[in-house]
Structure formats: C-alpha cells, structure tokens
C-alpha cells in the first residue's frame, strides 16, 4: 500500500542550537524519517526560502517542529506564519515549551540588559555610551537590526500549540518515539506532552528510604553517596516534580535533576510542584517542629527563582518580574 508522504518542517527561534544537534543525534533514525516524510522547510539544512513558506497553502505542512523562544518581532511573525501553514505544531525543547534558561531574562527588562552588556561590563571600552539601536545611519546608508523585547515568551504564549516535546535538549529517545507515533498516526490528544507519564524519580535507580531532611547542601558542598537518593542526602534535586523521558541522565553522573523536562504529569507548573514535594521531605518530627526551625530550613534554599524556575520562568505563574518604572 503506498501512502502519501508526510510534510515536515523544522524551525528555530531564540535558541542555542542544541535542539538542532539533538535532531542530528538521532543518527540512523533520520533514514526512517526520510522514508515517511518529506522535509519541506528546514532553514539550516535546505535551500527553501521564507518566501516559499509564505506561498504555501494554509495547512500545507503536516507537522512543524518549532524550537526556541519568542523574543523579537521576527520570531513572532514566523511562529504565526508556521502556525497558519501547519496542521500540527510541536513546541520542541525547553525554550519553545517553557522559555528555558534564557527565559531568566524576564527578571529584567531590555534596558537593564542593554545597559549592562554595552555600558557596565568591565571589558567594555565605550566612552561615547553607544548602545545598539534598531536603525543606524552610516555613511553608505541605513543599517537595521531587530528590536530586543522586554519579555521572553514561550511558543504557546504566542500561538496555539498542539504538542510539547520537553527537555533541554529533548532526549533522542523522545524524538525517536515522536517520529514513530507520527509514522503510525498514533499521536495522543492535542495538548499532550510527548513524554512518559512519570516523574524523573520514577526513572532514577537510586534507593529511597523515605527519610526526612533538615539540612540542605549545594552540589559543591557534598560528595553524595552514589547509590542513594540525592534529595534524601540533602541535595536539592528537582526529580520529584520533573517530567521524565530522559532516563535520569544527570543522576547517572551524581548530579541532581535541575528540571529541564518541565512539570511532571498532572502538575500545573514545576516550581509549585517542587515546593510541594519539598514540603513533604523537609522537616522535623513533631517534637522539633517549630516555626523557628521551619524558617531555618527554608532559608537554606538560596535563589528560589533560579532554582525552582531555572527552565520555566516565562511559562510559570510568575511569568516575569514586574519592573519599577
């Protein structure tokens, strides 16, 4: 039975390139992809122009994998265009899914960042106080660059998204599973996160003893026991609140999960989920449970925003820091 080939597109907005490397890392699996699909748009790989995408009929592309967050007008435009041209749009990787680490820029506005990078940094020699601007007249003509936005947005905060492939970058296995599901036309209901319905702890081989902890250690302060749960050894590990599918890779080199997979199943957001998980493990027995002790415990969590929302500030209920004007 001959079947019509699927039309796939890949696109990236504000990202580091790691998602593209993850696609390359599927290695021989790419052969399967080419058998079931034609890649109709992949700017890094193929000579198909933006204009050609504009000329495509609406819903011409079956599936677009979109990585990177949205932080300028051009990225916003491409997100809207690809939404219009695609039957299915997948937010690929943590940036598109939740804003990722560059989303921590939402703790500042564009002015703070520009001032810091071009005026205050110690290596800068800038006596005239030059800061990049969207339009510059040079003697030969006008040079234009895009405006740097105040706020980093996720793909779903910009357009309607059908699926999410979590991770920074998405693990090769999740990409391969997604390709299989597409090939077999077995994609789950719209809005699903394409990862196992488990938390990272469920994939972690370490032993748990249901211990309560009263002291937290930072990773550089303590060499952990390699067999035991890191959280029960007092090392803040986001495993209980983070979606799995990564095979607990970081834990294999004795480092804690930092939450790149996004919130675990049935959790609205990662930070709230983790704080709830912590509440159940941090603590004292009834004898020692005093306000003072709880306060002492909580104060050990330094930089809570950077800890609980390292990958997800734009997608969280916090979204961004409100700037005093």
């Amino acid at each position, binding site marked *: 039975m001959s079947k019509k080939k699927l039309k796939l597109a890949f696109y*990236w907005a*504000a990202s*580091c*390139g*790691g998602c*593209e490397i*993850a696609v*390359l*890392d599927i*290695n021989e699996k790419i052969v399967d992809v080419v058998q079931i699909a034609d890649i109709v748009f*992949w*700017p*890094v*790989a193929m*000579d*198909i*122009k933006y204009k050609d995408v504009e000329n495509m009929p609406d819903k011409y592309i079956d599936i677009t994998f979109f990585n990177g967050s949205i*932080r*300028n007008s*051009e990225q916003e435009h491409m997100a809207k265009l690809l939404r219009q041209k695609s039957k299915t749009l997948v937010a690929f990787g943590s940036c598109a899914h939740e804003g990722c680490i*560059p989303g*921590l*820029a939402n*703790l*500042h506005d564009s002015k703070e960042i520009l001032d*810091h990078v*071009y005026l205050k*940094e110690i*290596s*800068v*020699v*800038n006596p005239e106080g*030059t*800061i*990049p*601007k969207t339009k*510059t007249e*040079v003697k*030969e*003509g006008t*040079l234009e*660059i*895009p405006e*740097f936005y105040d706020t980093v947005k996720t793909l779903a905060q910009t357009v309607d998204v059908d699926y999410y492939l979590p991770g920074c*970058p998405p693990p090769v296995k999740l990409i391969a599973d997604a390709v299989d599901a597409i090939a077999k036309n077995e994609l789950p209901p719209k809005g699903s996160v394409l990862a196992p319905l488990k938390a990272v702890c469920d994939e972690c081989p370490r032993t748990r003893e249901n211990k309560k902890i009263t002291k937290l250690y*930072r*990773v*550089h*302060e303590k*060499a952990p026991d390699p067999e035991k749960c890191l959280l029960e050894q007092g090392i803040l590990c986001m495993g209980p609140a983070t979606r799995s599918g990564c095979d607990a*890779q970081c834990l*294999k*080199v004795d*480092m804690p999960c*930092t939450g*790149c997979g996004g919130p675990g199943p049935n959790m609205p957001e990662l930070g709230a989920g983790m704080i709830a998980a912590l509440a159940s493990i941090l603590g004292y027995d009834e004898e020692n449970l005093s306000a003072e002790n709880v306060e002492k415990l909580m104060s050990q969590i*330094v*930089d809570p925003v*950077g*800890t609980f929302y390292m990958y997800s500030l734009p997608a969280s209920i916090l979204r961004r820091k409100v700037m005093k004007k």
Partner: protein
Amino acid sequence: MKEISINPITRLEGHGSISIFLNDEGEVENAYLKIPELRGFEKFCEGRRAELMPQLTTRICGVCPVAHHFASVKALDAAFNVEPPSAAKKLRELMYAGYIIYDHTLHFYYLGGPDFVVGPDAPPEKRNILGVIEKAGLDVAKEVIKHRAYGQEITAILGGKATHPVCGLPGGISKALSEEDRQKIEKMAVSSVEFAKFSLKLFHDIVLGNSAYVDLIKSDAYTMKTYYMGQVDDNNEVNFYDGKIRVVDPNGSEFVKFEPKDYLTHIGEHVESWTYAKFPFLKKIGWKGQFYGTNNGVYRVGPLGRLNAADGMATPLAQAEYEVMYKTLGRPVHGTLAFHWARLIELLYAAERAVELIKDPEITSTNIRNKPGEPGEGVGVVEAARGTLYHHYVLDKDALIKDVNLIVATTNNYPAICMSIRDAAKGLIHNGKFDQGVLNKVEMAFRAYDPCFACATHLAVGQIPLIVKVYDNQKSLIQTLQR
C-alpha cells in the same frame, strides 16, 4: 549607492546578515556583518547560585556547550580558590578532547570542507556533505557520522549529557570513570586518531594536490595580516584546556603572554550601534577601526590563531603536520582559508591527546574532587573550537553570582570576520558585477572561521542559504539572486 545584502535565510530569527554597499562606480565601498541577536546572560546570571553557572552558561551555545561548561568550571575553581585533583583535570581534558573531535569533524565535513573537497566553483547543490560523500565515497560518510557520534558519546559518558553536560564542579568533577567506560572511550579515541590521519590525507590529496586551491589560500582576497591569540602550555604548544594566553604580532613574534586572570589588562571591547555583537581588541594598541596590521588591535583566534600563536603541537603526529603546514605556507600564516588545514591538525592533536589521557593509569582514579574554599572572584579560560573563551565571575559571601563578564570565542573574531567579508567582496566584485560564484567565495571567507553566531551553519548539510538583493541608489530592488 547600491546595497547588496546577503542574508542567510535565518535572518528572520537573526543569526547574522551581510550588507555590502557599492559606490557609483560599482566598486565595493564597505561591508557590514550585522548580528541581530542578544540574550543577556551576563545580566540574568546575577543572583544565581555560582555552582549552577557551568550549566546555565552551556545554553549560550548548544554546539559547543563543553567549552562553556569548562570555562565556567575553571572560573569557579579560581573563585573558590580550589585546585582540582590531578585525575579530575585529566578527565576534564579528556572530555574536552572528545568535544574537539566532534566539533572539528562536524565543521570540516559538513560545513567548511565542502568548499575545498568538492571545490569552490562547484555548483552550490554539490557543495555540502552529500557532495563530499559523492566525491570521497559512502565509506567515508559512514566514518564521518561514526566519529562525530564518538565525540558526542565521550562527552555523554563523562558529562551525563552530550549536549549540555552537568559533571563540572568547582574543585573537580562529579563522577569518576569506570574501567568499563574507560575501555569504551579508548576504542573510540584510537579510532579517532586513524580518522584524523585519514582526514588530513584527504585534504592533502584533494586540496594541496591542486595548485589552484593552494593559490586561492595564498591569494590577497583571503589574506589578512593580524595579531593572533591562543592558549599555550609551558612549552608554548597549543593547549585547549589550560595554560597562558599568548598573542603574536603580524610578523609572528610574541607580542604578549599573560595569565588568564589578567585578561582585562589586555582585551577591551568596542561597541557599535548597528550590531548586537561587540568588537574585542588588544588594549595596548587600541581600537582604531576596521583595518588590520601592526597598528590596530584586531586579532584572530580559532584554529589558525592558535597555531600561529604557538610554537608547535604537543603530540607527535600533529606536530609533524604542523611543520608541513608552515613549510608550505610560510610563517605566520595569514591566509584565512588555512583555518581549515589548522582545524584538521587540531583534530589529530585532540585524538592523540585523548589516547594519551585514556591510557593514563590515573584516569580511573576516584580522587576527583577537592573541597572548595571561600567564595571570591575568578577567571576561567579555555580554547573553544572557535577560539579563546573567557568567563569571569564575582561571587558574594553566599556564593551567589554578583557580576559576570564573558568574551565568547567567535566574538574575538568578529572584527576580523567583518574585514574578511569586506576584503573578499572588494577583491571579487568589480564594476557592479557579481554572480553566484562570487557570492560563494565571499561566503567562504565567512565560513572559514566556523562562526558560531551562525549556529545554523554547523548543522545538517552545512549550506548557508543566501539571498542577495541589489538596490539602486533610490533603494529600489533591481536584482535578486538566490541559491
């Protein structure tokens, strides 16, 4: 005045675009490479836990996360005033060698190499990895894919994840190497030496065996007499992971050699309003604009910068090839296209070094972390595939980040890349006439550096799609060229 703009199709999300201005006679007046992207890591890392920096900063680049990871870890070693145990340093350097194997292979076969292997005048649809396969054979392609994957696997074993590793800690590394994994890596490292030797043979047969290619390397359009910078060991030999920073002048004589912590004495960054990238320069000479020579502080980094700034390579096979290159091209080498040759010599060095390290009895030692001291200030430098990478942190008493300064590898080359593009355009475009072949050659100047702000160019079949628009002096579009 006419404007030609060369836009990678990626201009829409901003990975760099070139505008070339022609004067009334149709000669190139000037060219600008605009970088329309900024993310602001230096600002939003403030307030974060210091020990997270090696993971936060890998997200600057998903192609070279290992370089950021270890520049960051070394900055933390210094900031916490802790010296890692010898085995930890060796494991870091081993992982680093794996990264260089992966990254240099990716660039030579997928991106830069096709210009030579398939030929600079070959049609664009052939100037990619598929063209390389066609010319060199399918067996070669299999080896390329295998060894790129080996590089990634070495990083994954030691770092937890190949892209965005997590193993680095101030004072050491999080996990020791098991004997089982050691054997796996040894096999990959030994195989990588053979692969690097093969790659150099391919380069000799196809490129150096063709005098037209050698002439192109030596031609004026691709020659730029600048200062060069790279990290060297105690013998002034190239070292990716550790050492001092050495700068040579355009005549090849040592200009300065400094400790990483003193970088601010030697490097400044100039700002222009038409691009988000900054222009680093040698402070003692100063930023005097977009020209090169002894009187301007423009320097180059990356494979050619490193080899020019060093006196040799620390492994025997790479050293032999280093000598061949300088015998062939003179010293220092100012030909931008020689970056490709230098890159392959480094690939061989990285593979040889990986073999040395994996056979070191200490490599499976479990003494891999020392206790950090009080938080303070630190600078960490490594040689990323694309050049010298500086991380500088100031920590507060709680070991939270108070201040960050970064000079990222490609940024060092930004002034030189701008000039290389301008000069290639000036040398190749006359009387307002240019065609696809000319644009290919302008693009070759850009690609030789393997620039990371076009992360796009590291990927897949390695072709930068171009749109070239020609405007008349009324700014009306008169011609569009595409490839």
